[in-house]
């Protein structure tokens, strides 16, 4: 909300944010420069590694054919659908589990086990159940996000002091109102952290799954290019995969996480 002065980017905060961005991008640009110089100096053949120009040209061609957008759209749709389904189911389940100490204690190791189990481990069974395509890949994404968010939601609820529930109950809140007004907002910082972590897993799982189980998407584009020795398309795909994730993470997920944690008072504002 805009009325709180502390979260507004003030001149100094804005400057430090710009500085941060420059420091983040500069090493990447240096890497590109080193790449350009190395390919030219050592006369690396295109079949081994493409030059910067080859990759830019490939990007332009794929863009003009419209296939690039189609691959990106397919990948992003799968991530969005899988993630949204996972959030809608894992948050209520995480809260329900956490409100019963015994159930929470029993389920914590199980959730944790599946949370660290890589998304791609689900591909074989997913393709058996859903066939090749949208269903199998979305299932992989769903699993990557679901268990991490459920586990973090549970941790979040468990970290809400009992005294806050007591306060709500003594002010007349029903069980359902305590769920909506105390447990859900109280666990939100952890939920957001879970979503950020889960989407990181999901994005990696997506690329792997698309190499195996579909005929569209960034992972597929990457894998298909290999068959034609098109190293410039492979590199293009890798750069896009990394760039899209960094953009999502740094422009959307990280700021949301930071703001929730600040607002909830779990971390003091920088400099305060």
């Amino acid at each position, binding site marked *: 909300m805009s009325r*709180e002065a502390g979260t507004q980017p003030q001149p100094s905060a804005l400057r430090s944010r710009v500085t941060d961005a420059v420091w983040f991008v500069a090493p990447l640009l240096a890497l590109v420069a080193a790449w350009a110089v190395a390919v030219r100096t050592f006369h690396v053949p295109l079949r081994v590694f493409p030059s910067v120009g080859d990759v830019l040209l490939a990007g332009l061609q794929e863009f003009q054919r419209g296939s690039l957008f189609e691959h990106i759209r397919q990948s992003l749709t799968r991530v969005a659908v899988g993630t949204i389904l996972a959030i809608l189911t894992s948050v209520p389940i995480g809260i329900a589990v956490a409100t019963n100490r015994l159930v929470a204690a029993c389920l914590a190791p199980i959730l944790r086990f599946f949370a660290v189990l890589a998304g791609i481990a689900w591909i074989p069974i997913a393709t058996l159940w859903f066939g090749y395509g949208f269903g199998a890949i979305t299932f992989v994404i769903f699993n990557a996000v679901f268990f991490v968010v459920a586990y973090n939601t549970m941790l979040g609820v468990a970290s809400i002091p009992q005294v806050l529930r*007591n306060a709500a109950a003594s002010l007349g809140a029903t069980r359902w109102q305590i769920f909506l007004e105390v447990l859900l907002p109280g666990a*939100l910082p952890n939920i957001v952290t879970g979503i950020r972590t889960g989407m990181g897993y999901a994005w990696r799982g997506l690329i792997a799954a698309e190499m195996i189980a579909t005929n569209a998407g960034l992972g597929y584009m990457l894998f298909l290019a290999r068959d034609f020795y098109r190293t410039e398309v492979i590199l293009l795909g890798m750069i896009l995969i990394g760039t899209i994730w960094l953009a999502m993470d740094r422009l959307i997920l990280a700021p949301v996480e930071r703001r929730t944690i600040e*607002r*909830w*008072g779990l971390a003091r504002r920088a400099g305060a």
Partner: protein
Amino acid sequence: MADLVIRKLGKTYFDLYAGRHVTAVADVSLEIHTGEFVSIVGASGCGKTTLLNMVAGFIPPSEGEILLGDRQVKGPGPDRGVVFQGFALFPWKSVLDNVAFGLKMRGVPRAERLRIAEEYVALVGLAGAESRYPTELSGGMQQRVGVARALANSPELLLMDEPFASVDAQTRMTLQEELTRIWEAKHPTILFVTHDVDEAVFLSDRVIVLTRSPGTVRAEVPIPLPRPRSWGRLVEDGRFKALVARVLALVRDSDPPTNPAGGQERSG
């Protein structure tokens, strides 16, 4: 409005560390009348917070009963407002939304509940801070929000659990004076738990002294000091000093003989 009646109340729980049953509160009977300000004092560990938590409905008693008017206390409810030692404000809600919380739970329309909440925010001297968040406030200001939140819900009984124990001494005296001012203006029924004898005598109509382990009523001391009360007037007042000395003697007399200094305050 209704009187609070506590009959033969006891609480025994299993202490995991000691590996045996411990009686925290035993055979407590007392009455608090409508509009009365009653404090419970006792050395730390005497079960006074356990007693308050049973009245609030947070923990069930092992024996006896608690009646508010003709209703038996079975769990927490909006008829008993609670002010907590650690404030227990909702960190994701603004001052105004914290104060309006109880009214929202009870379905009061938004415009009306915000109007009432503003009134109580002003009553505790926080006008202008409505849109701030708890972490942006000092401890003293947070507890003003805690008091406003409990009062805005118009409870029949206000339970205060060492509410000023975690603020500095200067702020504590200001908050005590403001609480007397509010009580003198509105006469809510208050059950106030503290280990601070000066505070209990300053605020109350009646002070109840608990013995230590198990906590049971040792004495009741009426406080017939005139109102309005202020520290400026009472700090040199002979009657105030005499009452403090008397209550303090009762509290210290209930200490085990091995600990003549009066015991360190433990949290919890």
